[in-house]
């Protein structure tokens, strides 16, 4: 039986791939959109039987991230897996299917005064895609990233078996936490079909306090004063569209009386130029401009260095005081220049125990650069990958070191 026919037997929505559906130019042979976890399992089983290389697709907001797949015989589209399975509001827990857009989830949760404390840098992005990309924004400072908020995960393995880890309770140490392993795994370990998250109440009040600063050293000083203060910020961001000058912003959330008092404290720390507003400053929680995007691990004490370096090359950046940021390279950056910039950043950040990974880049830049930089535990990663996907059919070539 042809793969298309075999897939049609287990899944209601199967068709040949279209040229415009290419994953970084690699056009999928087939596209299947399972509507249930059982259908997804059927699809993955057929893919295993036919040796098909599988790439999962959510809302395509990050499909151009990473390196192109070596091959893509089957794109598994999750848009029909888009239900909220259970919102146990009294327990502050929600279970949702992988294809559900985070915006929709947020709206449903907000109706009951709750939220998933993850920023949504790219509108439309899905539950599954967000986990696969370990995507997070400014709120990471207080609430962490998907690894800290996913408490249960259901995946379909390469062989079509459905496996679950974690559960529906926040406090749980039974068995390995595969949820954390799958965060940031870029579709290379299995197909995420359902996730359970820990939720938080929507705070009664919030305020942003922002302050423009002209130099890297001042930005560092402002961040340090906020970071070590007792005002318990939800986020501290540095927005640098034209570094080294930038905006330092802090988000305070809580009860109205508390936010008022803490806003006054933050304003005092940031000085006379500080402004208070209810709306986030421009660029808050978004990726910086540019056609090449880097995800940098840059601890607080590397901020001065980071802003100075990227200022010299006229790059853009946003940075969170948790020690993670994004750097954008403008479209006109020549491939060899991009390679030099990235290598320079890596070298500088390594002195601060930091790193830089490329998220996306134009094809000519991709060809000139090392996408990942040094990968400390590469051998172990390959050994784990080999266990989950011995045939190397899941997003092959999309991840570190050829994984």
């Amino acid at each position, binding site marked *: 039986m042809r793969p298309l026919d075999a897939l049609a037997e287990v899944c209601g929505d199967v068709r040949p791939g279209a040229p415009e559906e290419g994953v970084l130019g690699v056009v999928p042979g087939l596209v299947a959109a399972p509507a249930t976890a059982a259908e997804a399992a059927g699809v993955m089983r057929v893919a*295993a039987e036919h040796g098909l290389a599988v790439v999962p697709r959510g809302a395509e907001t990050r499909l151009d991230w990473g390196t192109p797949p070596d091959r893509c015989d089957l794109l598994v589209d999750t848009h029909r897996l888009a239900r909220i399975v259970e919102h146990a509001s*009294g327990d502050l827990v929600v279970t949702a299917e992988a294809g559900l857009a985070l915006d929709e989830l947020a709206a449903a949760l907000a109706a009951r005064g709750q939220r998933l404390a993850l920023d949504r840098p790219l509108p439309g992005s899905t539950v599954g895609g967000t986990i696969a990309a370990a995507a997070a924004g400014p709120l990471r400072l207080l609430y*962490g990233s998907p*690894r*800290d908020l996913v408490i249960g995960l259901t*995946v379909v*393995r*390469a062989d079509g*078996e459905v*496996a*679950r880890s974690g*559960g*529906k*309770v926040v*406090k*749980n*140490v*039974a*068995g*390995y*936490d*595969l949820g*954390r*392993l799958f965060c*940031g795994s870029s579709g290379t*370990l299995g197909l995420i079909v359902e996730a359970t998250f820990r939720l938080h*109440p*929507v705070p009664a009040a919030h305020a942003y306090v922002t302050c423009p600063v002209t130099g890297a050293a001042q930005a560092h000083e402002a961040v*340090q004063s906020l*970071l070590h*203060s*007792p*005002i*318990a910020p939800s986020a501290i961001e540095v927005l640098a569209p034209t570094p080294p000058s930038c905006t330092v912003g802090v988000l305070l959330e*809580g009860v109205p*009386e*508390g936010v008022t008092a*803490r806003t006054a404290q933050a304003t005092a720390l940031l000085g006379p130029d500080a402004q208070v507003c209810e709306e986030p400053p421009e660029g808050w929680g978004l990726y910086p401009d540019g056609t090449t995007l880097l995800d940098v691990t840059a*601890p607080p*004490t590397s901020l001065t260095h980071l802003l100075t370096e990227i200022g010299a090359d006229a790059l853009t950046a946003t940075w969170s005081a948790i*020690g*993670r940021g994004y750097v954008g390279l403008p479209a006109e950056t020549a491939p060899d220049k991009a390679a030099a910039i990235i290598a320079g950043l890596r070298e500088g950040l390594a002195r601060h125990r930091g*790193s830089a*990974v490329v998220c996306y880049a134009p094809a000519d830049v991709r060809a000139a650069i090392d996408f*990942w*930089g*040094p990968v*400390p535990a590469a*051998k*172990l990663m*390959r050994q*784990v990958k*080999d*266990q*989950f996907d*011995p*045939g190397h059919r899941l997003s092959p070539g999309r*991840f*570190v*070191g050829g994984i």
Partner: protein
Amino acid sequence: MSEGLARLAGRFGRLLGPDSVITDPVRLRTYECDGLTSHRASPGLVVLPDTAEQIAQIVRDCAAAGVPYVARGSGTGLSGGALPRTDGVLIVTSRMRRILEIDIPNRRAVVEPGVINLDVTRAVRADGYHFAPDPSSQQICSVGGNVAENSGGAHCLKYGFTAHHVLSCEVVTPDGEIVELAADGPGYDLLGVFVGAEGTLGIATKITVRLTRSPEAVRTLLAAFGSIEAGGGAVSAIIGAGVLPAAIEMMDALSIEAAEAAVRCEYPPGAGAVLIVELDGPESEVAHQFAEVERLCRDAGAFEIRVAADDAERALIWTGRKSAFAAMGRISPAYLVQDGVIPRTSLPRVLASIDALSAASGVRVANVFHAGDGNLHPLVLFDDAEPGAAERAEEVSGKILDLCIEHGGSITGEHGVGVDKSRYMPRMFTETDLDTMQMVRCGFDPAGLCNPGKVFPTPRLCGEVPGVRKGPHPYEGKADLF
């Protein structure tokens, strides 16, 4: 001692010096159990290394000899995760107790695995920081053990578990290599699965922990209720109001009685349940929320509320709770500590079921729990002098776990699976779930020598990989990417 172990003992003696290798049966017995004393096994050999390089060499030697090994910190675990192997080597990290670096500007510290949990906090307290995971054993438990068990504590309701407070670990892998696993950086989040793997994926030799800004204000109250149901109602009301306390702890009448007998904590007489609620954070937030919590407790039927005026009074409120486990000795010759989790909203139903279970079996159960996150610690009381009593207690304890699973909870919230609960894992997870978890194990430790027999009821044969490999090796020509 087997010939293989004797050979290893000789090698390790030359590697570490004779003072760092224990072969004397009497001294070996010191290490025969961890905090779960019902499981005992004298280790074949104990080593006390000082460095990661030594641990790597020990692991390589064990691997070459096919000898299993177990890492142990302070031995305070409650699920037998550090239970030694009689045919293996116990690697004790108690000599690796240096705090290597304190980096306040980056809010982190680098410590060796044997460093005591509370010593991290002591070292940074003056800077206004602390290490957030606070298991009750924090005065003696090690950070390496915290990493293995993904330890929590009363305050993890707000601050999360060890996994949320470890930025990276230097690890000796079962291959005997020293690698760095980090939460940030390129590739898989292997650290995320390593923390909480109960020492089955390797041995942490250096840990970079996140330091947490100590709160400006801490306020604690004790509320007494006529019944557990009323106390549970207060918990739901507090959480429902959008308040996230640092801790919410509850004790039932039997555990109050025991604590009273042991430490004279002077909790309000006649209470069917007491609730301890602690709020922390910026002064302006805490002041407002604390008033609301008081009101919610009163509305839920609290007949007495005590507010700690200072640190001494706060300590007094906590005394009863913290001594609850040990206090059981005052009301029962022996007891089992259970650790199960339920969705918080199921609390009243599950506690009623535990009551019914207790009544039907005649086995007394005292309840102490982290009510905020639904983590129950039922204490199953029995008389070990009475024939069959231990078995009956064990049965009731197991049925409590079944109740947790029925209500969508977990068989362990913080004590771990270890050897104690591996047999319950199939009640919570399918064979495929467990098989999938063990793929990670096989990736790290295909020979299965690193803390074997823990967590999983049956080991996966690592050769049994699904699927067929076709064509050239996919990494071919790509190794130069690094």
